[in-house]
């Protein structure tokens, strides 16, 4: 299809504001006399508050309010950023109150103060006297599931939050049919999003008595509902405003601060209060990515076909449920489309522990399971002596495949082309031959890994998106969407879609980037890589409606039937010849001011997308491993993606770069560390937590295989999360290729690598 704006690398619509310092983030809403909120955190991983005395804190000059668990609504609520489920069985686990009398991790919020300034607030926290009864900290799923272990939440036996899995086909029969059986155990570490903007919220009560919350979130409409639920007030009494967001990666697909911020302003008569976490707080009391352990058993036929796979997973969800139950399931669902096989059994256990809360993080369970499965497949290929790429290719999915459990259908699939492209980019065959017989202490190797993922959450979740377009007097338009720009570039691609449909330049599409639940159309928000695909449908629908209304209006003005007209380059033209009828601006002016026929043109529409689209891709990596130091250097890395039609290649490349960077950190360096006895965090800051700096990232090669997804008006599919998914297993497989050592645990940091090399007798 020939597009004029879609498919072009136009500049971001918010770029000028962001390079000049004019872009406003939540922390930039500085009101005079804004009060400061601060949280008193438990020093114990597992403890009951026996007694709390806040009288000294309350008496400190400058302290406006002190809140404890005794002052918060006795309502348990869930924080996961999912659409509300009308079916009570599908609701998220309601397992927390705004402040708690039982600490479930080091850093759990026991009490809070509101004061005139930061120092007074900090001082007041020190004056709160708490007497704790310390319980045994349960820091691993094994400890938590042990018979007789104390319960972190009273209603979950053996501290198991959920164990919902599935079985496709008959796994035991499949294993009997197989010629070979292979088994592996693999595990990932707890990592953190490290978006540059910490979590921050401001709240006040307006003159109508409604609570207004300005907050750094991916999900403003969901925040409104959850604040309403947590406070036990009508949802309409809450107004949520989302300005620019300094990154989220899933940590802001969760309601971390907003209920407490709302409570704080209520406690001080509605005066504005700001609650801003420090980096140290943000890293322990927002969300992390689940560490998951897998046991995988796979049956393979002589000719290299996968017959059956059994995956048992134990996911460490930390102190509260958040997205935990859903992540284990989502990971186990989205990967399975890639290699359809006769039987697949997935048995996950999601387990509470006394560690920080794990939640959504870029990939939502897929980085973990893809690391496990793609590492396992590599091990199998080596043991069978088959080329790992050929092995995968024998088992790949084809267009037309229908997921047997959820009915989602593969309607576009470029995975084979992605593999071929990646192979060619990294010069696979040539380098494989070159690295065959290496000696010495520096060894090179090649690895690859594939992934599949979905575009949104259908059929598990509601996929609702809203868009509103208003035609201005000059022929430009306003575009409002409920979908949130958090850095990924969604505002820009929506502007491109509107410009494409309406035949106007992108700079005539004024995107209202701020979401305000009072004004903005309903949309569930930025997660599941859903917005370009799902919200794109609503945006296209609204733009088409505006176009239709414009052409109908012209029909009234000219007697030329609407179906004979089109809009091109800001002009109304004859569809067949392109001959100009009149400028769009002239029509627009008439829609406002024609004394007889004036009717300003708008569209306000929603789209309930009961559909999904699978995306695919691959990472190819070349590493050099220093046997003496255990240091792994990524020499070359390429990600090739089938995300359907690419709406903005430059922005899309940016998503891939960022995802690959995050994947390299996941593979080689990042992990949150805790004292093994007490559960105290050891590296909750950006110095000790090793997120990649500019020195740690090699050049990143990016390519797209542009299939056309028929369910999207522009042929597009998901891209936001996927780039990070296959990176760690590709690097791990390259290390295996270089050294013969099969790592089964992330990260592969120098110490762990060195130890493993020693164990393997390499050094």
């Amino acid at each position, binding site marked *: 299809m020939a597009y004029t704006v879609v498919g072009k*690398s136009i*500049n*971001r619509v*918010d*770029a*000028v*504001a*962001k*390079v*000049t*310092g*004019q*872009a*406003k*983030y939540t*922390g*930039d809403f*500085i009101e005079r006399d804004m009060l400061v909120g601060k949280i008193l955190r438990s020093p114990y991983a597992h403890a009951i508050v026996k007694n709390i005395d806040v009288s000294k804190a309350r008496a400190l000059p400058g302290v406006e309010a002190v809140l404890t668990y005794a002052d918060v609504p006795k309502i348990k609520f869930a924080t996961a950023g999912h659409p509300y489920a009308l079916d009570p069985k599908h609701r998220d686990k309601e397992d927390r109150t705004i402040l708690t009398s039982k600490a479930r991790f080091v850093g759990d919020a026991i009490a809070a103060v509101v004061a005139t300034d930061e*120092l007074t607030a900090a001082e007041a926290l020190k004056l709160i006297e708490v007497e704790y009864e310390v319980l045994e900290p349960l820091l691993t799923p094994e400890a938590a599931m042990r018979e007789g272990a104390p319960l972190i939440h009273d209603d979950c036996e053996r501290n198991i939050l959920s164990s919902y899995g599935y079985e496709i086909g008959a796994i035991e029969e499949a294993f009997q049919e197989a010629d070979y059986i292979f088994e592996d155990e693999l595990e990932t570490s707890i990592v953190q*999003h*490290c*978006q*540059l*903007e*910490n979590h921050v919220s401001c709240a006040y009560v307006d003159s109508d008595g409604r609570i207004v919350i300005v907050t750094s979130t991916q999900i403003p409409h969901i925040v409104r509902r959850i604040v309403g639920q947590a406070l036990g007030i009508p949802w309409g009494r809450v107004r949520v405003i989302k300005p*620019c*967001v*300094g*990154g989220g*990666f899933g940590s802001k697909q969760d309601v971390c601060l907003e209920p407490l911020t709302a409570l704080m302003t209520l406690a001080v008569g509605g005066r504005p209060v700001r609650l801003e976490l*420090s*980096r140290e707080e943000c890293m322990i009391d927002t969300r992390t990515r689940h560490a998951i352990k897998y046991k995988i058993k796979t049956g393979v036929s002589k000719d290299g076909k996968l017959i059956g796979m059994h995956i048992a997973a134990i996911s460490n969800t930390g102190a509260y449920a958040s997205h935990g139950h859903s992540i284990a399931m989502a990971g186990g669902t989205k990967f399975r489309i890639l290699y359809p096989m006769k039987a697949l059994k997935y048995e996950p256990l999601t387990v509470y522990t006394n560690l920080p809360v794990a939640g959504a993080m870029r990939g939502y369970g897929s980085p973990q399971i893809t690391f496990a499965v793609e590492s396992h497949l590599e091990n199998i290929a080596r043991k069978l002596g088959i080329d790992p790429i050929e092995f995968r290719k024998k088992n790949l999915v084809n267009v037309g495949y229908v997921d047997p459990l959820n009915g989602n259908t593969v309607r576009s699939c470029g995975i084979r082309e992605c593999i071929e492209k990646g192979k060619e980019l990294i010069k696979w065959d040539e380098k494989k031959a070159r690295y065959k017989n290496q000696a010495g202490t520096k060894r090179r190797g090649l690895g690859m890994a594939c992934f599949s993922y979905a575009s949104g959450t259908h059929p598990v979740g509601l996929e609702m998106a809203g868009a509103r377009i208003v035609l201005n007097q000059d022929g430009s338009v306003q575009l409002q969407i409920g979908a949130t720009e*958090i*850095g*990924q*570039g969604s505002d820009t691609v929506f502007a491109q879609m509107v410009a494409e449909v309406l035949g106007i330049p992108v700079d005539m599409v004024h995107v209202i980037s701020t979401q305000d639940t009072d004004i903005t159309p309903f949309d569930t928000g930025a997660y599941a890589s859903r917005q370009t695909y799902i919200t794109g449908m609503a945006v296209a629908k609204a733009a088409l409606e505006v176009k239709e209304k414009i052409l109908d209006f012209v029909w009234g003005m000219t007697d030329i039937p609407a179906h004979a007209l089109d809009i091109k380059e800001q002009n109304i033209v004859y569809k067949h010849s392109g001959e100009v009828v009149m400028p769009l601006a002239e029509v627009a002016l008439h829609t406002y001011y024609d004394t007889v026929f004036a009717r300003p043109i708008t569209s306000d529409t929603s789209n309930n997308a009961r559909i999904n689209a699978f995306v695919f891709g691959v990472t190819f990596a070349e590493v050099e491993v220093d046997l003496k130091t255990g240091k792994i250097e990524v020499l070359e890395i390429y990600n090739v993606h089938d995300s359907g039609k690419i709406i903005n290649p*430059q*922005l899309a*490349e*940016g998503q*891939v*770069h*960022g*995802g*690959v*960077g*995050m994947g390299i950190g996941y593979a080689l360096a990042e992990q949150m560390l805790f004292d093994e006895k007490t559960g105290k965090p050891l590296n909750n*800051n*950006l*110095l000790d937590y090793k*997120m990649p*700096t*500019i*020195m740690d*990232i090699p*050049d*990143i090669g990016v390519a797209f295989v542009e299939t056309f997804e028929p369910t999207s008006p522009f042929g597009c599919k998901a891209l936001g999360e996927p780039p990070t998914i296959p990176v760690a297993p590709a690097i791990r497989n390259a290390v295996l290729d270089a050294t013969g050592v099969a790592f089964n645990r992330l990260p592969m940091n120098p110490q762990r690598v060195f130890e493993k090399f020693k164990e393997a007798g390499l050094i």
Partner: protein
Amino acid sequence: MKPVPRIKLKVNGQEYQVEVPADITLLELLREYLSLTGTKEGCGKGECGACTVLMDGQAVNSCLVPAAKAEGSEVLTIEGLASPDGRLHPLQEAFISEGAVQCGFCTPGMIMSAKALLDQNPHPTREEIKVALSGNLCRCTGYAKIITAVEKAAAMIAGEGRG
């Protein structure tokens, strides 16, 4: 009561005399007293570089500089980088055209670190750019387009004969 010193400094070419609490940082002075919120705080500990500004031509983490230390100095923030007529600095233009901006939270600090580099070394290699920006963390971009943007800005400045 804490002593309230009056600090005299020049920010983005403009003279200021501000009364501030003795314990605040240059970052707080800029954001809360001068309403220059373009400079961001990502950690408050000098780990992330989001708060980078130029103080007498040197890139500094403004979260680590006591406000009183800025007495008599000349500070340049992201708001002061464009020409008074609104013409963007080549670094700003290159960050836009190369797609080096995503969430934008690290961007002001990145650009200021890059400005300090180009002021001292107008023709840096990619490696020199990396070293100069190694104190600025970014989680969105994988740094790729940021490096390219700085290279492009250097070429633009050389082409224009402008510094």
